[in-house]
């Protein structure tokens, strides 16, 4: 029996975003990683990065960094921030 449950707020999906397995392929094909990584390792890299960025929110909200980092709403909002930042826009609507 699966011990993982669907997250209370669903899963985060990103327009033009890649799955962990696809990311592993891209990194390997581009030579950024010497051998193809497991998708779980990619997920760990992703979540570790998310945890670093979640710290300010965790302080504000009183939730743990781990919780915030895994929250799909936070992930979607962050993707929006980074996308807006890339497009050089100043209006950010969280």
């Amino acid at each position, binding site marked *: 029996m699966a011990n993982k449950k669907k997250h209370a707020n669903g899963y985060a999906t*990103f*327009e*033009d*975003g*890649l799955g*962990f397995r*696809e*990311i592993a392929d*891209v*990194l390997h*094909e*581009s030579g*950024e*990683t010497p051998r193809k990584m497991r998708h779980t390792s*990619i997920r760990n*890299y*992703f979540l*570790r*990065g*998310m945890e*670093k*960025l979640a*710290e*300010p*929110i965790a302080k*504000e909200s009183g939730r743990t960094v781990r919780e915030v980092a895994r929250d799909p709403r936070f992930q979607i909002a*962050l*993707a929006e*921030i*980074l*996308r807006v*930042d*890339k497009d050089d826009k100043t209006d*950010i609507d*969280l």
Partner: protein
Amino acid sequence: MSTDLYYKHVGKFDLLTRQQEYDLAAKAKDGCIKSKHLMVEHNLRLAIHIAKKYSKTKCSMEELIAEANVGLCKAVDKFDHTKGFRFSTYATWWIKQAILRYISRSTTVKFASGARNKIYKINIARKNYYEEFSCYPEDTELAGLLDMDIRELSELRCANQWPINLDQPINSEAGRTYGDLIADENTPDQSERLDHEQIIDSIKARLADLKPLEERVMRLRFGITQDAFDTTKFPKSRSQQ
């Protein structure tokens, strides 16, 4: 036809005597259209008389008279002369009913006729209370006086408030309308916006702490590059530098 001309025209018709009324009603009952017309014409003054009592409402006098005449026509159709009452006694109720129904239809907020009667009673009770004690009663007090449920009374009183046009200018402040006073609930207040901006800034500051591979994975995951397989099109990540 202007209202004055109409009044003059109506004034030409004398009141019917009891016998005339009886004869016309009998013929009308048998289907004589002319008799019905005569009964209506000779009672137009009654319709005006009753319509005038409602002249303080928002409806115009012409509209009230027209509705009163509709009620009068219905009274002529339904009048039973064999019961021995005068036509005016019977017609009065039909005319009042037609006018009241029209008034309730013409207001912005629609009420069932029962609810409208209750509102009328509430207003009368409040007015009487004010005349006696120089202050308006509380809803609980009023509910006790009228033997009504407090919740129903409160709802009726809320519904009875006169609607305001949001585009109507406010008297004391030139250029401002009532609509300007309503807060936009979708717009976050300034302090909230500043908090958001501070959080975003602090998140952006943390971007520098990411390891190159973490940053690269996040970019691919979020789809910040348009074509993830063609890395040459995108700004180089630090892992490639």
